[in-house]
C-alpha cells in the first residue's frame, strides 16, 4: 500500500463525511432544542433530493444554463424544509412537546412511514438522477486519480460553510441566542419574552432544511431510489450519537470519523465497510454514553 493511497482514501472519506454531516447536524440541532429524536429526518433528506433533482432536470429541459442548478439546489432544500418540515412541526410535533420521549419518537416514526410512501406516489420508483451540476464542475487530478470537483471541493466547502454559519447564527445573532436560551432553560427564556413556540418551529425548519440540503447535494452524485432515507437516517443517528446529541461541532468530527473509517475499510477490510459506523457508535456509547463531546448532567435532589 503506497502512502499516497492513504491520502486518497482520506479524500474519499472527506466527501462522504461532509454529506453525512449535513444531515446529522440537522438531526442534532433538532434534538438539542426540541428534545426530539426525529426519525422522519431521513425522509427530509430523500424529499430534498427528489425535489432538487426534479428542479435541475426541469432546468435542463427548459434549456437554461447549468450554473442555475446550484441556486436551485439551495432553493429546493429551503422549500422542503419550510413546507414539509413546517407542516410536520405545526400539525403534529407541536401536540407532543412535553409528553413522553417514546411518544415523540413514535410520532416521528409514523411521519417517516407516511413520507416514505408519499415520495413513491409523487416521484415514482424509477431511479432518478440529475448529474448536471457534478459534470459541469469537472474534475481535479490528485496523484493521477481524477476526482469530481463537486465531491472533493464543493461538498466539503458547503459542509464547512454550514458549520461556520450555524456557529455564527447561534452565538452572534439575536434569534440564534434565543434558540440557545430556550435550549438551556425554556421557562426562563419564556419569562424573558422569547416566543418558545416560534423558536421550536424555526429550529425544526432549519434542521429539516439541512437534511434536505444534504439530499439536494447528493442528488447530483447518486441515483435516488425508494428507501434512501432510511439508510441515511441510521447513519446520521450514528453521527449524532457519537458526537453527543445536540453537539454541532462534534457532529462534524464524528461525520469525518465515519467517513474516514468507511473509506479506510474499503481499502483494508472491504468486508466491514458497512459495519464501521455502527461499530464506532457502539464503542463510543459504551465508553462515553453521553457522546464524545457532551458532559454528564446530574439531577438535582
Amino acid at each position: 500500500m503506497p502512502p499516497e493511497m492513504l491520502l486518497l482514501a482520506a479524500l474519499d472519506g472527506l466527501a462522504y463525511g461532509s454529506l453525512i454531516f449535513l444531515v446529522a447536524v440537522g438531526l442534532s440541532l433538532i434534538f438539542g432544542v426540541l428534545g426530539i429524536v426525529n426519525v422522519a429526518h431521513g425522509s427530509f433528506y430523500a424529499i430534498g433530493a427528489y425535489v432538487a433533482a426534479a428542479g435541475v432536470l426541469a432546468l435542463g429541459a427548459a434549456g437554461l444554463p447549468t450554473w442555475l442548478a446550484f441556486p436551485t439546489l439551495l432553493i429546493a432544500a429551503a422549500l422542503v424544509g419550510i413546507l414539509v418540515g413546517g407542516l410536520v412541526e405545526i400539525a403534529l410535533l407541536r401536540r407532543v412537546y412535553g409528553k413522553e420521549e417514546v411518544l415523540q419518537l413514535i410520532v416521528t416514526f409514523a411521519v417517516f412511514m407516511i413520507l416514505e410512501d408519499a415520495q413513491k406516489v409523487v416521484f415514482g420508483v424509477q431511479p432518478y438522477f440529475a448529474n448536471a451540476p457534478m459534470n459541469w464542475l469537472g474534475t481535479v487530478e490528485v496523484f493521477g486519480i481524477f476526482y469530481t470537483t463537486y465531491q472533493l471541493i464543493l461538498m466539503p466547502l458547503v459542509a464547512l460553510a454550514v458549520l461556520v454559519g450555524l456557529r455564527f447564527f447561534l452565538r452572534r445573532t439575536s434569534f440564534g441566542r434565543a434558540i440557545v436560551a430556550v435550549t438551556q432553560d425554556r421557562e426562563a427564556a419564556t419569562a424573558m419574552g422569547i416566543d418558545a413556540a416560534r423558536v421550536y418551529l424555526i429550529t425544526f425548519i432549519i434542521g429539516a432544511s439541512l437534511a434536505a440540503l444534504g439530499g439536494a447535494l447528493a442528488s447530483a452524485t447518486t441515483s435516488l431510489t425508494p428507501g434512501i432515507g432510511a439508510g441515511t437516517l441510521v447513519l446520521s443517528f450514528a453521527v449524532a450519537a457519537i458526537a453527543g446529541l445536540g453537539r454541532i461541532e462534534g457532529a462534524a468530527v464524528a461525520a469525518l470519523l465515519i467517513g474516514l473509517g468507511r473509506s479506510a475499510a474499503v481499502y483494508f477490510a472491504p468486508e466491514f465497510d458497512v459495519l464501521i459506523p455502527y461499530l464506532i457508535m457502539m464503542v463510543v456509547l459504551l465508553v462515553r454514553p453521553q457522546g464524545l463531546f457532551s458532559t454528564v448532567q446530574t439531577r438535582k435532589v
Partner: protein
Amino acid sequence: MARQLVFGAALIAALAVFPLFSPWSTVILTVALCEGLAALGIMVLLRAGQVSFGHGLFFSFSAYAVAFMAAAKVGHEALVLIPVGMAASGLLAAIVGLFVVRYRAIFFGMLNLAISMVFFSLLEKLFSITGGADGKRVPRPTFAGVEFGREQFELATFYVTLVLCILAALFVARYLLSPGGKALEAIKSNETRLEYLGVSPRKVLYGAYLLSGLLAGLGGAIIALVSGHVTPELAYWVRSGEFVFIAILGGIGGVAGPFLGALMFQIIRGYAAVYAPETWHAVLGVMLLVIIFFAPAGLYGIVAGKGGKAQREEGGR
C-alpha cells in the same frame, strides 16, 4: 379486572377457533402472535420508560439460531427448536443487557439500535455463512416427533404459539403486579428513590431486559418455523420500530395490548396490501397517529374502556 379477564378469555376463544374456519389465516395469526410476543417484551421495557429500537436483534437471533439448527438437522424438532431458540436470545440478552441497562431514555434506545444494526450488517455481510440478504431456508422440522404436512404443522404451531402467548401474558401480568414490576415502573417515575430504597435500578432493568429478550426470542423462533425462511430484515431497525409501533398501537396498559396491536397491525397490513399495495406504510402511519392523538391508551385502552388519558398523559417528567 373482571372485565379484562372476560375480554382476554373472549379474545383467546376467538383466536382458538379462527383457523378452523379459515385455514389461510393460521400463518398470519401465528405471525401476529409472534410479533405480539416481541411487542410484549417492548411493553415490559416501556413500563420502565425505556424504549428499545433494537429488539429485532433478539427476534432475529433466535430465528437464525433455529434456521441453523434446523438446516444442520440438530434437534430437528419444533418442540426442541422453539425453547432452544428462545434460550439463545435469552443468553444474548443476558450479555447485551449487562451493557445497555446502564443507559436511559434516548441513549438506551440508540445503543440497542447500534447493537442490532451491527448484527444486521453481519447477517448481510457474512454471505457464506448466513446467506446474506437472501437469508436462509428453514426446513420444516418434526412436531412432537411426527412429520406433519404443511397444514397440520401450521395448525399445531399456531396452537402451541397461542398457549405460549397465554402463558407469557399471564406471567408478565403477574410480574407487573408484583413488587418487582412496581420497582420496574419506579425506574420511570423516580430512580433516585429506588436507589435510596437500597434497590439497584440496573438489576431491576436487567431482569426486565432479560425477560423482554426472551419474549422477542420466543417470537423469533416461532416465526422462523412458521415462515420457513429467515432474512436479515428481521434485524433491521425498521422491524424493531414496528415492535414499538405495535406496543403503542395496542397500548401498554395491559398484557393483551401488544397482542391486540399485533392483530390490528396484520389486519391493516393485509388490507392495505390488497387495496393500497404501494402505500401500506402510509396507511399504518396514519393509523398510528390517529391512535396516539385520539386514543393514547391504545386499542387496549379502548377495549378495556379506560378512555386512555390517565395512563399515559402523566409519564413525561
